């Protein structure tokens, strides 16, 4: 009997071993090393000096990063709800088909390319200003570059909104169509159906998509580096700068840990939602 019950347990461990090894060697160990280095002085003792330095030099950038990522997350949510909502409730089949085809394109474009696209699009002599001047909406003298925090937000939203839309539209499509029809039948217009009936039933998926986007945007280096590398900028640029210019791994690791804490905030939201779903 014992042999029968212990064999599958060993089999299970053996099956999971390769995955556990990869996670341990390539993720857990470097993360632990990074944390250790952030708290170690030159003599090998414990210190908070690197964090103190990180806060002295980069508090503005930390707040800037948080503000950029939070604003982008909100805008991504609004855009994803609008697009997925139209894909679910839209009544013009051609418009729905066109939107369904178009919205996914940024998913296949890397961040670095998105950054480069935004440089040419949002610069003072970029395409956006050309169009605005050409259509007479602004005077040539009032054209200004958007290659600052606005450019980063535009790039993030452009790149991440399709990802959240993809998740959200899938969740909305799996809802029973009679739920939507029942609301319309009782007098609800489509916007009300979206807000009252559809969105509350897919808010878990929306939250997951937004948390994953939040964490992804925290880690992007190429976009802030290409659009707005000057202070205030995002923490990823600061980390690269500390390593490439000063080989200062200690402060870089302290900044990474602080970023990790921000990401952990998102993970906390995610886990709290997952736990509440499990309870209900």
């Amino acid at each position, binding site marked *: 009997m014992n042999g029968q019950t212990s064999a599958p347990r060993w089999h299970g461990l053996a099956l999971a071993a390769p995955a556990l090894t990869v996670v341990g060697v390539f993720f857990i160990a470097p993360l632990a090393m990074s944390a250790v280095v952030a708290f170690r002085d030159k003599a090998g003792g414990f210190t908070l000096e690197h964090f103190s330095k990180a806060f002295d030099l980069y508090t503005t950038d930390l707040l800037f990063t948080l503000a950029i990522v939070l604003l982008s997350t909100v805008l991504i949510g609004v855009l994803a709800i609008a697009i997925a909502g139209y894909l679910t409730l839209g009544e013009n089949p051609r418009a729905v088909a066109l939107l369904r085809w178009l919205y996914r394109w940024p998913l296949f474009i890397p961040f670095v390319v998105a950054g480069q696209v935004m440089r040419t699009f949002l610069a003072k002599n970029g395409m956006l200003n050309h169009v605005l001047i050409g259509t007479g909406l602004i005077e040539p003298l009032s054209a200004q570059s958007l290659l600052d925090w606005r450019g980063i937000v535009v790039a993030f939203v452009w790149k991440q909104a399709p990802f959240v839309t993809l998740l959200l539209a899938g969740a909305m499509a799996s809802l*029973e169509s*009679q*739920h939507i*029809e*029942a*609301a*319309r*039948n*009782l*007098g*609800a*217009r489509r916007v*009300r159906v979206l807000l*009252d*009936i559809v969105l*509350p*039933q897919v808010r878990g998926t929306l939250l997951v998509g937004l948390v994953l986007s939040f964490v992804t945007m925290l880690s992007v280096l190429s976009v802030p580096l290409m659009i707005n590398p000057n202070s205030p900028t995002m923490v990823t640029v600061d980390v690269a700068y500390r390593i490439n210019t000063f080989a200062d791994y200690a402060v870089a690791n302290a900044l990474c840990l602080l970023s990790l804490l921000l990401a952990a905030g998102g993970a906390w939201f995610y886990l709290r939602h997952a736990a509440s779903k499990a309870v209900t």
Partner: protein
Amino acid sequence: MIATDRLKANPSYLSIEALTVAYGATRVLDRVSLGVERGEMIALLGSSGCGKTTLLRAIAGFVRPESGTIRVGGKDITHLPPEARETAMMFQSYALWPHMNVADNIAYGLRMRGWTKAAMAARVADMLKLLQLDGFGPRPVTQLSGGQRQRVALGRALAIDPHLLLLDEPMSNLDYKVRLELRHELRALQQRISITAVYVTHDREEALTLSDRIAVIDAGRIVQVGAPEEIFHRPTSAFVAGFMGADNAIDVTQRDDGTLLAAGGGPGARVRAHFRSDSARLETGSTPSSGPDLVLSGTIEQAVYIGQGYRYRVRTPGGDVWVHAPDRVPEGTPACVVVPRQAVLLFPPEPPDSATTSAMRPAA
């Protein structure tokens, strides 16, 4: 055309005229005309895919017709969006919103109409009382039984005091016993509040017990409309006869004096006879004299116990027929099926190359 002319001369509360609905090249409803009086409950009866649910969804505004008009109280609603029609639909799956409790589900239509919180609470309480769900308001709908969910869905539909109540097979997901109980409750409630209702079903017993009139639909057309007794006893086509339970169909010979013989039993016209299994009797002794009744000789091929007796498949020269009898008779026994003349419904014989049924008056 006759139906359309009648509707124009004397418009009903719900008036559907020459409604045609197509999905691509497939015509699902073909020039359907129907009138429903105020306070009447009409059943749309037909088999799966006949177009009955499409007709209901067209009334609700979820299906755009290719042509034709739908009027409620004289107002043309054909091109109004669903939210502007003041109809309330009960769905097969109930479609209760799981993120709202019972009270919020019922109050949703009132919220859309801008009712105050106090007025909504009072109306919800009325609905819960009407549907014997007192105290269920704060409960999540996910914790309700099928029958309770069905009541909440009905309460949600009735709360807005709709011009029309549309019911799309709302009992098909319930246990037989609950279905029987709710069927009578729904009928009593509909009569008490005198609401105009259209009920879609494929269950003839449900249609017979629930409705003031039945419209039988086949292949996108209404083939007969009438009171339940009329549809049951005087079907105007072989299709309706078969759908209403007269599913024994056999070619027989009709003499000039009206008496019926098994096919090939003598001179006369060939006609198609339909009868119900429980209106015929099984004779296993000597061959009875036919008299006015139809007598079909054959052999018992199969016996099935059905609780209150047995159901027999009897092979006759004209084809197999089913008949009910109280006692057990072994398979292989020669027997006669005797069908009283008044229980036989006669229709023209089907053309050999067509399975379609033509809407004709029975010969008797």
